[in-house]
């Protein structure tokens, strides 16, 4: 069991880094689809940490990963549909000029 533990620190570190990259992506990029991809990246980072922690506390961590993946998939479907609708109106996916609602 001990060797499994050895990888826990780095795994959690990696998922934290991935998560931060995801967040930075959402922050900096202007294209909606890239933003969406970054959010998916954040979710997968969390999956990694789930798997890493599952070593400690048994299989429930891994079960959680499956839930996360299915939810991410559902979200992806709906998200892309919304992005399509936006594209139909603005002919662009650049977040800068999607600001009709303000004030």
């Amino acid at each position, binding site marked *: 069991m001990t060797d499994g533990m050895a990888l826990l620190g780095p795994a959690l570190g990696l998922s934290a880094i991935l998560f931060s990259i995801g967040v930075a992506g959402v922050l900096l990029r202007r294209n909606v689809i890239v933003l969406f991809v970054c959010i998916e990246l*954040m979710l997968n980072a969390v999956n990694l940490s789930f798997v890493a922690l599952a070593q400690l506390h048994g299989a429930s961590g891994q079960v959680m990963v499956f839930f996360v993946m299915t939810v991410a998939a559902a979200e992806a479907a*709906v998200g892309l549909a919304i992005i399509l609708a936006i594209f139909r109106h603005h002919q662009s996916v650049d977040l800068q000029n999607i600001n009709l609602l303000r004030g």
Partner: protein
Amino acid sequence: MNRIDLASPVGVAIALLPEILLTGWALIVLLVVSWRHRTAQDSRLAGWLSLVGLLFSGAALAALWVGGASPDGLPQMVALDPFRYGAAAIALLAAAGTVLISLGYLEREGLIAPEYYPLVLLATAGMMFLAGAEDLIVLFLGLEVMSVAVYVLAGFDRTDPFSSEAALKYFLIGAFASGFLLYGIALVYGAAGTTNLSIIGAQLSGRPIPMMAALGLGLLLIGMGFKISAVPFHMWAPDVYDGSPTPVSGLMATGVKAAAFAALVRVLMEAFPSAVGLWQPVVAALAIASMTVGNLTALAQRSLKRMLAYSSIAHAGYMLVAVWAGTHAGAGAVLLYLLAYGLTTLAAFGLLTALGRGGERDVTYDDIAGLAGARPAIALGLAVCMLSLLGFPGTLGFIGKWYILSAVVAEGQMILPVLLVLTSVLSAGYYLPVIMSMYMRPSPGADRHAAVGLSPTAAGAIAASVVAVVLLGLWPSGLLEVAGASARTLTQTALPLAGP
């Protein structure tokens, strides 16, 4: 008090009966809609069908509540206590209200897309899971089911760029926030070894909170902060409420907020009672920020819909003050305020549908000048809503605020109540002008308000909630008993896990 054994599948089925019924019913309606979706009658049929579904689910919930169902042994995935039933009931009420208002609204707006109703049902099912979740996984799932459904509902009017923009913003920032929430769940799971709330509570109690659990708690707060639109995670709310169709805004302001707050209270009270020193200052800060920014920015709004959006941020602040108390009284206050705020805001959005067209974004204070002369009933309804939101005595809103004040003062806290009260005074600055322009200003044209009208179903729903707000405001003792009792059931019953 029949005890339900959650280990056996039959036990679980009974425990989740309301949610199961609702989801099943939603699928049935989806089937019916798949081949009857062209005419207005189809849309109305789907609407009435979904209402029936809500009734069934409500009946099941009542059976559980009246039967006093409680878990035999450790509560597994979903809590079986009146607090869940109460929150779920509010969610059902909100959904029923939204459906009743939407019946007339969709037809008038030419949105003949009956799949609107199954989405509402599914969103409500999500809310009920979220409100009743005893396990972080179920909490996450409930949250996502609700959110995805509401994302689509927000962008329901495809032809209207505002609606799609609202959906996009809600989706992007929503997903972003659920990323944080999920990361929190992972860290808490890492620290406590389980995702069951009461077991987490047991694990963490008795020893200083480990770093990972603290981080987890922080991330959870961020995720939930977004859902209840607390400042500084609130930026999405005004635009999304403004852009999406008015009944959907109503649902978001009432149902979504109710489920989110119920979950937040349960997580904080059951999972992190020992970490009170940690989360109380954060909640206090969020509360103060929301109350001040929400009320101040609402002052500058000309459109009624955006004013109601900012006011919902302010009310989130008031409820966060109750959450800060961290006691059963606080939980009771949140539950009651959710009902009070829910009923009033739903009626307000409902009345707003009467006043405008196409998303009612352009309905300003001047548009409703002299409405009292033309439409006395609608004007009176809106006036009562404004007074209840203001927390004026004689309305349920006042009883809600009073309950929050008593809960928080009982903890010896003075600054938060005074801030709550002072920001309420600010709110008079944008609630009263609504009443003033309706009653005290002459209507510009004779037939200026000819177009103002409500469909019978919407009128019925709104009238019911307005009357409820006043009656419960005058005779609140029954309601207060129920809220207090259901809050007291939020106790951490589990024993710590053996082992590491």
